[in-house]
């Protein structure tokens, strides 16, 4: 039964909500006029708007309780979270869209200038960006190989082998390492063409001039391997958890029926593992699409862009060239591609997620 709220209390509730909202709108308006030099109020920064927003948010929450009593209190479980998300996700995204359609080179004395679709045209004709996107396809396809290896390792660790606990921890170690450390320890040290121990071994084995980042295919493959080495444990641990959840009775029944190991795997384990596998692959794709640190440290995208990822290219646009407008557009466009791609993948995966048994 709803609380009995007096008219005076209702009016007060409405007053603080609408009063703070009008105050917020007025503050934004005055600050905008000041910012565009129509009127001068001497605002030094946008903090007044921030404070007005916080006041409105507080009044909105308080107003719920005043207006709706117990029902309003329940709304407080979700309303602050909604306001917080709007503040730190929606607003920045809107601002980012504004920047994405601007020419904003930090070195330009003119500051940020709206430039319509110029960044779209620039991206369309930018061979570096499309090259990076093409590389991302290669990198993403490599996940299939990673998945096979991760599945194999998980199967191995799920059996009764000696020192199983040790291997489980040991196989997880690469995941605990920072990709930056991996870049330096492996990419810049162990694979160093002249002194690196792996290069020395390669020479011993008859490769006269070992070069792990010299050719396009080789460099891309080695980057894939370093990244895979770091993240295969993540997939492995997810699959291992899935394997341990399969009821033993299923395998025992198959044993009674005399099913060979391969048939047991293909007819029981693999289908039952599909939901976990799809989840692991989707999570891995999300991680992979952000690949940048190893590339930036080891090859800077080279040789000739062969290892460049979208993120490492955007990093150069931002950091080395202070090209904020174009860099933001590339990032937003990439985000849209990822959202569309992931939505399609999840839709397709949906039917695979349902086990056949």
């Amino acid at each position, binding site marked *: 039964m709803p609380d009995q709220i007096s008219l005076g209390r209702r009016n007060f509730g409405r007053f603080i909500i609408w009063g703070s909202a009008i105050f917020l709108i007025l503050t934004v308006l005055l600050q905008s006029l000041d910012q565009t030099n129509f009127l001068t109020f001497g605002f030094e920064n946008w903090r007044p708007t921030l404070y007005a927003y916080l006041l409105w948010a507080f009044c909105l929450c308080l107003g719920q309780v005043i207006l709706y009593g117990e029902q309003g209190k329940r709304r407080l479980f979700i309303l602050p979270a909604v306001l917080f998300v709007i503040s730190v996700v929606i607003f920045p995204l809107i601002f980012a869209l504004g920047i994405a359609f601007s020419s904003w080179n930090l070195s330009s004395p003119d500051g940020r200038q709206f430039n319509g679709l110029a960044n779209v045209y620039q991206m369309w004709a930018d061979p570096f960006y499309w090259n990076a996107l093409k590389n991302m396809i290669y990198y993403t396809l490599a996940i299939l190989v990673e998945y096979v290896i991760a599945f194999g390792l998980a199967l191995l660790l799920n059996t009764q082998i000696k020192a199983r606990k040790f291997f489980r921890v040991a196989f997880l170690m690469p995941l605990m390492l920072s990709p930056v450390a991996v870049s330096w320890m492996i990419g810049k040290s162990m694979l160093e063409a002249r002194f690196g121990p792996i290069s020395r071994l390669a020479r011993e084995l008859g490769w006269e001039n070992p070069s792990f*980042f010299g050719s396009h295919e080789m460099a891309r493959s080695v980057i894939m391997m370093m990244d895979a080495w770091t993240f295969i444990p993540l997939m492995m641990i997810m699959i291992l958890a899935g394997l341990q959840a399969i009821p033993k009775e299923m395998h025992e029944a198959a044993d009674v029926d005399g099913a060979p190991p391969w048939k047991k795997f293909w007819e029981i384990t693999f289908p039952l593992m599909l939901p976990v596998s799809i989840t692991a692959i989707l999570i891995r794709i999300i991680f992979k699409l952000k690949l940048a640190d190893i590339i930036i440290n080891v090859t800077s995208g080279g040789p000739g862009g062969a290892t460049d990822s979208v993120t490492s290219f955007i990093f150069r646009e931002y950091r080395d060239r202070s090209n904020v407008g174009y860099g933001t557009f590339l990032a937003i466009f990439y985000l849209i591609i990822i959202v569309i791609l992931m939505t399609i993948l999840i839709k397709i995966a949906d039917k695979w997620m349902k086990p056949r048994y």
Partner: protein
Amino acid sequence: MKVELYNHIVRNGLTRRTMLKGAASTAALAAMGGAVPALADGHSALRAAIMKIPGVGMGSPGDAEWQKVGEMCLGPVKDRVKPGEFKGVELTFMGLNNQNLHNFLFRGFLKPWEAYTGAKINWIDLAQADYNPRLQQSIATKTVDFDIIEMGAPFEGDTAGQGLLNEMPDWVKDQIDYDDLVGYLQPPVGTWDGKAYRINIDGDCHTFCYRTDYFGSGSITGRANPPKTWQEVNQISKDVVGKTDPLTGLPAHGFLDPLKGWGGFGMYFLTDRAGPYVKHPDDPAFLFDIDTMKPRINNPGWVQAIQDVMDLIKIDGAYPADQINADPGTTGFQQFLAGTGSMLTWWGDIGSNARTNDSSVIGDVVGFSMIPGSDKVYNSKKGAWENNYNEAPNNAYLGWGVYVTNRVEGDSKKRKAAWSAAAHIGGKDISLWTSAYPSGFQPYRNSHFVYDEWEAAGYDRAFIEDYLGSNLDTYNHPNSLNEPRIPGIFQYYSVAEDELAKGFAGQYSSAQETADAIAAAWEKITDSIGRESQIKLYKASMGL
């Protein structure tokens, strides 16, 4: 002085006995009627005294020594500022924290200054990698929150060009002896539209490093002397293919070009090669046409330099394996110092590390000279090659300076305080000390090259003449390369590195196509920053 070089001198070149001998002889000369060796100026006693803090060979100086030197060099400040005159003034100083020097050193120098003047300094310490983004963001978002900044001259376009700096008062010029600078640091460097903004605290240049065991009778090159031109450099690189390095017994290599970018800094190394081709003595410009900002990067001179590199890439064995992934850090520290390759251009670090770095194997077989010239030079104005010998050494990055921002404008007390602090750390005497002891800064004044002062302080004369002399020729060369101090200069360098990487990887069909791609990208950057504004600032930076 670079830390490594100082350590080397202490470790190898100087014993306590020789140091005491030097000090004793100085004292004896002084006792004979003040006949201290020919010193730079009237501050000879003070200069001789600070050169003994802590004393060459007495360990690396720290905060106590920095404060002591700061205290001893306060004279020029006291001549112009009354005790406690800046009481209540707070200044913010933004600088680097490289090697625990730079800002740490300045803190020590300025502590006595703060005690004397009553001002307080707040510090913003930045790692080198964070410096450019922090500065650019401060400028773009109009949140310059520092009154004094340690900054390289290439950023003058971003700051002075946008009216963010405060003009140096005349009394500061007197205090720091403004004209006592090596040739390349003389105006227009440090000035904008004829106004002075920079107090120099450092010098920078690339020099040519070579292996002495590759030259002389019986050497694998068969040449008596190191190369004088880039044509010879390339010929040597081709000639030594298939031969064995006399020091390491591994395959011999010639010049080490960094084929991978380095956050924009890699462009300096192609510029080393291109300089003699493209910097005509009658023309101050070499990267852009001054009147239009049209890139010159695709003119025949630059294309020749790119072609020279591509010629070597085509020859199997001319470069070490995996050179396509070698940035300047790799060519300098992992290759040249380790005995791979025989020729290199770099900043002073390689010279000092060659004899001090534990992983260096070339300490006894390394020589230095000015960057090679060319037997032809492209005259951009006439659009034709001229077949005469040309030199154009590269003063890459131009060195660090101290600047005051226009936050102090409108407050005469604060302005005077900021300039007084900046002038103190850029003072003539204090700079001799920073040249002689580990500081991260190189000599940059003519008065730093008075070898007697160094010898009197206990330095080995032969070594110090070799060390200082190697830079002096470049600093004072009449046709040296001083990069344009225009906004976003590192954006141009960065995008050039990307296109060069493609060219060197064979993704463009020729050097010309590579250069054309760079030129197109540079045009875009110029348009995005603002062509008219860039032209105006370029001219201002050239003093035109």
